């Protein structure tokens, strides 16, 4: 008989009490597409032997909205609002990635003030996105309170977005050539107040969730992803750094003057279990929020007066050619493969969603997990189906 490996909870099988060669009937279990812990319309078909998962097959496409086909029918500037809806929790970062791809192909320069404001908004959105990830991960693990706390802080960021561009989620604020309009009077001061307030709250999350005994037991040593596996499957963002790889595009190939800022790349240490487990992936997000606060403070200090938008025609034409541009999104590297034939709309726009690649490792990590750990695993990968399906 096959020896059952239970790396997630090694002391579950006590010698003499439960025979380790016991087999039950294998059943197929359908999880999703409507399920509270799949974070959207992800469907996973699980083959289980009792509580043990033998095989997990993800089925995606339930939120496929043909973004790449639409891109071929609209002008370059008209596509910006569609990028909001890729990873709908980090619209600013998506706008930024698309704008930078078009600007690189078109050779468009952006004024310095716009660059710093782009960094400020991208990092604010990173904090907001990680707050959702952390809060909802606590919810997946049975802790309701952290969600309320993290949404309280996120609300302030949403107010800052609303003050700047009138929208909370679908911002379309970072546009080709700069940003849509300058921030209103007093906005910088409000942003500084938020940073002071937010920095003092991070200890609360750690006390409530990060070092919570039950939470650590649910997430440490679960879904271990070694560094070589993470790189081989194209994992990026907190999922890759949680495995101990210090790889961040903001450092490796800096864009938007990220090279002017002083910040660290937090990586997983295996502090509560094994390197690359769910807890490591979770905790990297907490540490990244601290670094984002550091970056925003420096960018606010450097913010100079001046224009925020280069003049770009409404119906613009790009020279024929190809470009591939990637930015570091909260969930990993968002890439745009943009092909132009010299016309007014993209000839082809392929979008590399970081969640799409991160999710592809799920069938490798899930076998030999307990059924209840699947929620821990999916939550720690932190997928947003909007950019998996596009």
């Amino acid at each position, binding site marked *: 008989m096959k020896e059952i490996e239970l790396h997630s909870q090694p002391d579950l099988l006590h010698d003499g009490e439960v025979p380790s060669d016991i087999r039950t009937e294998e059943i197929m279990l359908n999880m999703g597409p409507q399920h509270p812990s799949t974070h959207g319309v992800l469907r996973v078909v699980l083959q289980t032997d009792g509580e043990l998962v033998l095989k997990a097959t993800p089925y995606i496409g339930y939120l496929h909205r043909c973004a790449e086909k639409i891109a071929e029918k609209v002008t370059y500037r008209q596509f910006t609002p569609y990028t909001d809806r890729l990873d709908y929790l980090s619209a600013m970062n998506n706008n930024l990635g698309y704008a930078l791809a078009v600007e690189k192909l078109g050779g468009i320069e952006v004024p310095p003030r716009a660059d710093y404001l782009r960094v400020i908004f991208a990092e604010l959105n990173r904090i907001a996105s990680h707050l959702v990830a952390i809060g909802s991960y606590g919810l997946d693990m049975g802790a309701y309170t952290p969600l309320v706390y993290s949404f309280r802080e996120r609300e302030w960021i949403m107010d800052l977005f609303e003050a700047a561009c009138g929208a909370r989620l679908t911002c379309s604020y970072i546009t080709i050539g700069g940003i849509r309009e300058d921030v209103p009077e007093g906005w910088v001061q409000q942003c500084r107040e938020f940073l002071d307030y937010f920095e003092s709250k991070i200890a609360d999350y750690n006390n409530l969730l990060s070092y919570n005994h039950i939470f650590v037991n649910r997430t440490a040593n679960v879904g271990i992803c070694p560094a070589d596996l993470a790189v081989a499957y194209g994992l990026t963002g907190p999922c890759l750094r949680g495995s101990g*790889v210090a790889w961040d595009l903001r450092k490796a190939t800096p864009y938007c003057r990220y090279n002017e800022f002083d910040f660290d790349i937090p990586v997983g240490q295996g502090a509560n279990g094994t390197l690359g487990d769910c807890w490591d992936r979770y905790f990297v997000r907490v540490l990244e929020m601290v670094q984002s606060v550091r970056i925003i403070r420096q960018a606010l200090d450097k913010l100079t007066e001046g224009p925020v938008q280069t003049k770009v025609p409404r119906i613009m034409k790009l020279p024929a050619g190809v470009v591939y541009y990637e930015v570091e999104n909260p969930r990993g590297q968002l890439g745009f493969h943009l092909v132009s034939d010299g016309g007014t709309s993209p000839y082809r726009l392929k979008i590399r969603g970081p969640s799409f690649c991160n999710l592809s490792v799920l069938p490798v990590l899930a076998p030999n997990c307990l059924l209840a750990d699947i929620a821990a695993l999916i939550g720690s990968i932190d997928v947003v189906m909007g950019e998996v399906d596009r």
Partner: protein
Amino acid sequence: MTPLEIIELLKKHDADSVVVAVADGPYPHVVITAEKLVKVADFLKTEPRLRFDLLRCISAVDWPAKNSIELAYDLISTSLGHAFAFKVLLDRADPQVESVGGVWPAAQWHEREAFDLMGVTFLHHPDLRRILMPEDWPGHPLRKDYQDVAEYRGLKFKP
């Protein structure tokens, strides 16, 4: 390494595999022959001076005017920090190419997407199924000559 050095290294390794080399501009890349795809991919990943360990994206582009489908593989090295890309050109009527899933497992889902939306067949792929569209969907939607479906399982669509 700069794109020029990478191209020279590739040509030194196997000059026959490189068809076109573009060293400057916004997108430095080489076009390689489809037959040598897996060998070149393996070289790019294992050569100590290159070490392209992270496959970022596989993008399929349809060119009806050139009667070809182009696959672009975008790479970056997490240890050395340099980036590069290579392309293969396939026959539009019957696009077939070897899978690089054995070199970079990340390719598997990208290849399924290219199969689903562009109709490229990847040989020796462990699980080549549609990924975004339903299993029984007719046609490949990102082809330039794709005709919108009028009806699907009793659902009628207005043009």
